[in-house]
């Protein structure tokens, strides 16, 4: 029953209560009376009836007013409070009950508000704790990723399925160097987030290493496993595996959620080791019999001084012969193995200019002496112990300052063959060779910093040389450091510098949960791994002989576009380019000649796309080109294909244009260059990620739904 109705009933009851007893009493008295009494009473009452009625009405009105007041305060007031409380429970946490009404109601309201206050404090606390925890997890992730990306070792983290969750730049370069094929698969088709490590390393060996770790865990030993493996290209890799253990579980296989692999290419060091061994062998084992021969001959000569002259001659000849042979062997060994026999001091490959820059900074900092550079070979790598070398340079600078007080120092860097020349130049009087000799042999010192090494030690450590030389014409002199040139194992990735926007996306810890490998059409769009790609072609008519001249692609893993995992390859179309198309794609005849043809590129691209859903803008066009090559290359792209043009039409059916430029503008995506296959592929990727969210709003969540929706659009009916 509604409150209003209850009020009406209450008023009726009040009315009855006020009139009822009087009317009933009057009726009973009336029935009991004689006729005369009745008429007398009628007379008496009728004359006073208005007063009675007035009084009753007055009382009734007061009663109603009181009742209404009570109703307002206790019934309606509480109802209002209940509504407010509901609001506080749901829609608006910050709402509060207005404190009004009679004291009891006010107390109730106050208590409710206090409770709400307490609840808010608790909720805020929980929220802030969650936020802090989230932030710290995020920070840890970032820190780990940053740390990993800077490591000099190649590191790859995998889940138990062998899917790559994280890798660092070094690993990428390492494996890229291994995948030396005819195509420059920038970023390496082999390594990538969510890809299988088994495409790079032998599955059996990984499984064996896991088994070893399992056994070591059970035995309570340090869980670590090493193995050496050869790659398809015959390179030797030393791999170390340590488990990623779930924090909750005890140390057992069940709680191992993945593993960390550190990969080192030891081909070169093994080769060097072998050469060193061989040299050592030639010099030791090889000497044994020679020395044995000499020793025996000498002993005979000594022990039997009175032997015949002819015999003596023969023994002397033996000695002469053996010594000559040994000398030859030593010379040969030195020539052959000079690199391998060199000092075992660990030298690293460093850019010469980096050493000089470091020395310049320290000279400026410590000595306040200005420095300049002259001819600099900025691509020259040297084998050096950078710390001691920089120390030696600064030490020399300091000595020059003390003795000759030059106004400035200059550096020069050049090379001939296997030798790098690092010159420290100054203008001033000639110095004597004795002075320099003393400098060479003194323990090095820069101000209060001392080194146990002498300049000579540093030079020897590098297997180098140093000398003093005068440039008479220029009235100046220089110290020349001769150092071994290094051939850097892995070249710096120029691509990446050009493309590097923010931190590389080398990690994705969410892949720890990644299990399903095959493409399941009922999985969420945001969960799948995609390859977004674009092609540049000689023209628009594949069936009339137009050919692909560039394929660019990037990967989307766990809803992120991975700018580091890209495929970018120019293809020789083996037909002349159409002059009118050159301004569009910017690819010239010179650029395509000498590049691999489609027979080579397509298999590499196919490998790059493995296990992913393809995405392209106006995919039908690109797919047509790929299909036409099926017969020739025997490569089929059988995976599902999503088309951003069609998906855009699904999301915005009333828009006229779904050209890539227009969509980019519509979705508020700004990118730099366009009409380069890779840039367009990356743009398409950005578009796709935005579309996924918009599709979700329309209830299109899975790949299957997206494919079905795309098929129904108007644009899909216009076949290419």
């Amino acid at each position, binding site marked *: 029953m509604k409150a209003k109705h209850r009020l009406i009933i209450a008023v009726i009851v009040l009315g009855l209560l006020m009139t009822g007893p009087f009317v009933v009493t009057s009726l009973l008295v009336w029935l009991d009376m004689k006729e005369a009494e009745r008429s007398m009473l009628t007379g008496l009452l009728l004359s006073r009836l208005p007063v009675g009625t007035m009084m009753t009405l007055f009382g009734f009105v007061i009663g109603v007013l009181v009742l209404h007041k009570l109703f307002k305060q206790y019934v309606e007031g509480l109802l209002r409070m209940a509504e407010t409380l509901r609001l506080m429970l749901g829609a608006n946490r910050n709402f509060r009950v207005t404190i009004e009404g009679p004291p009891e109601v006010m107390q109730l309201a106050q208590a409710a508000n206090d409770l709400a206050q307490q609840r808010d404090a608790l909720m805020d606390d929980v929220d802030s704790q969650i936020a802090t925890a989230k932030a710290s997890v995020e920070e840890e992730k970032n820190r780990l990723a940053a740390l990993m990306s800077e490591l000099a070792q190649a590191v790859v983290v995998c889940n138990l399925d062998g899917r790559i969750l994280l890798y660092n730049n070094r690993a990428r370069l390492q494996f890229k160097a291994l995948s030396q094929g005819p195509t420059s698969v920038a970023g390496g088709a082999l390594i990538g987030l969510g890809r299988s490590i088994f495409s790079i390393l032998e599955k059996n060996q990984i499984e064996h290493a896991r088994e070893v770790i399992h056994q070591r865990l059970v035995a309570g030993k340090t869980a670590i496993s090493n193995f050496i493996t050869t790659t398809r290209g015959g390179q030797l890799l030393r791999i170390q595996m340590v488990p990623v253990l779930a924090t909750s579980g005890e140390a057992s296989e069940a709680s191992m959620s993945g593993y960390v692999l550190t990969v080192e290419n030891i081909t070169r060091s093994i080769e060097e080791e072998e050469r060193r061994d061989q040299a050592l062998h030639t010099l030791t*084992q*090889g000497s*044994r*019999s020679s*020395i*044995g*021969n*000499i*020793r*025996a*001959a000498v*002993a*005979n000569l000594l*022990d*039997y001084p009175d*032997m015949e002259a002819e*015999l003596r001659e*023969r*023994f002397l000849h*033996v000695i002469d*012969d*053996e010594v000559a042979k040994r000398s030859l062997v030593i010379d040969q060994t030195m020539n052959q193995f000079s690199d391998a026999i060199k000092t075992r001091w660990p030298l690293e490959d460093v850019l010469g200019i980096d050493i000089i820059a470091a020395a310049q900074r320290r000279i400026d900092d410590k000595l306040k002496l200005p420095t300049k550079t002259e001819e600099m070979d900025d691509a020259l790598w040297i084998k050096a112990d950078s710390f001691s070398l920089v120390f030696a340079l600064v030490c020399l600078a300091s000595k020059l300052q003390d003795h000759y007080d030059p106004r400035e120092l200059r550096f020069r860097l050049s090379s001939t063959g296997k030798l790098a020349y690092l010159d420290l130049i100054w203008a001033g009087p000639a110095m004597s060779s004795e002075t320099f000799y003393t400098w060479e042999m003194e323990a090095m010192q820069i101000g209060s910093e001392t080194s146990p090494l002498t300049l000579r030690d540093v030079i020897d450590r590098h297997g180098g040389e140093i000398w003093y030389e005068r440039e008479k014409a220029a009235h100046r002199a220089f110290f020349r450091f001769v150092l071994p040139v290094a051939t850097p194992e892995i070249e710096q990735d120029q691509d990446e510098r050009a493309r590097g926007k923010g931190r590389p996306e080398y990690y994705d810890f969410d892949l720890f949960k990644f299990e399903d490998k095959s493409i399941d059409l009922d999985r969420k769009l945001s969960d799948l791994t995609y390859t977004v790609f674009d092609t540049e072609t000689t023209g628009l008519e594949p069936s009339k002989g137009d050919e692909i001249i560039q394929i660019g692609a990037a990967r989307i893993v766990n809803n992120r576009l991975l700018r580091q995992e890209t495929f970018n390859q120019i293809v020789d179309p083996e037909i002349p380019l159409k002059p009118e198309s050159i301004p569009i794609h910017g690819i010239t005849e010179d650029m395509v000649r000498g590049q691999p043809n489609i027979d080579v590129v397509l298999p590499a691209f196919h490998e790059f796309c493995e296990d992913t859903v393809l995405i392209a803008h106006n995919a039908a066009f690109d797919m047509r080109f790929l299909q036409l090559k099926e017969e020739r290359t025997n490569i089929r792209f059988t995976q599902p294909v999503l088309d951003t043009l069609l998906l855009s039409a699904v999301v915005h059916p009333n828009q006229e244009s779904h050209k890539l430029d227009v969509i980019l503008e519509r979705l508020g995506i700004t990118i730099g260059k366009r009409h380069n296959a890779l840039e367009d592929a990356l743009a398409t990727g950005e578009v796709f990620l935005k579309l996924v969210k918009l599709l979700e709003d329309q209830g299109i969540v899975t790949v299957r739904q997206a494919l079905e929706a795309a098929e129904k659009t108007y644009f899909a009916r216009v076949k290419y």
Partner: protein
Amino acid sequence: MTKKILIVDDEPNIVISLEFLMKKEGFAVAVAVDGEEALAKVADFNPDLVLLDVMMPKKSGFEVCEALRADPSRGGLLIVMLTAKGRDTEVAKGLAIGADAYVTKPFSTKDLVAKVKTMLGVA
């Protein structure tokens, strides 16, 4: 009776010293320059002791040693292996296949003579 020693080595520069030394010590000496010749000479010359080099063309010293030890009629023949390989593993192998002594080059001629004499019981 004069003890007979067969020197087996392909290097003339050591053979000349050994031959001279052993003759001076009063032994009858024969020389073989490879493994096959060694086996033939053992049959002809019938030595009491063989100084056997390990590294030789045709048949290695190990093979010669094994062949000699396979002949029960030559049970009393003493074999001293001479080698330029000084690894423990090779010494172990030489002794395992029946050499009586193992001498690594370079060696002291005095020690070698002393050893040979002790083995032949003429010291």
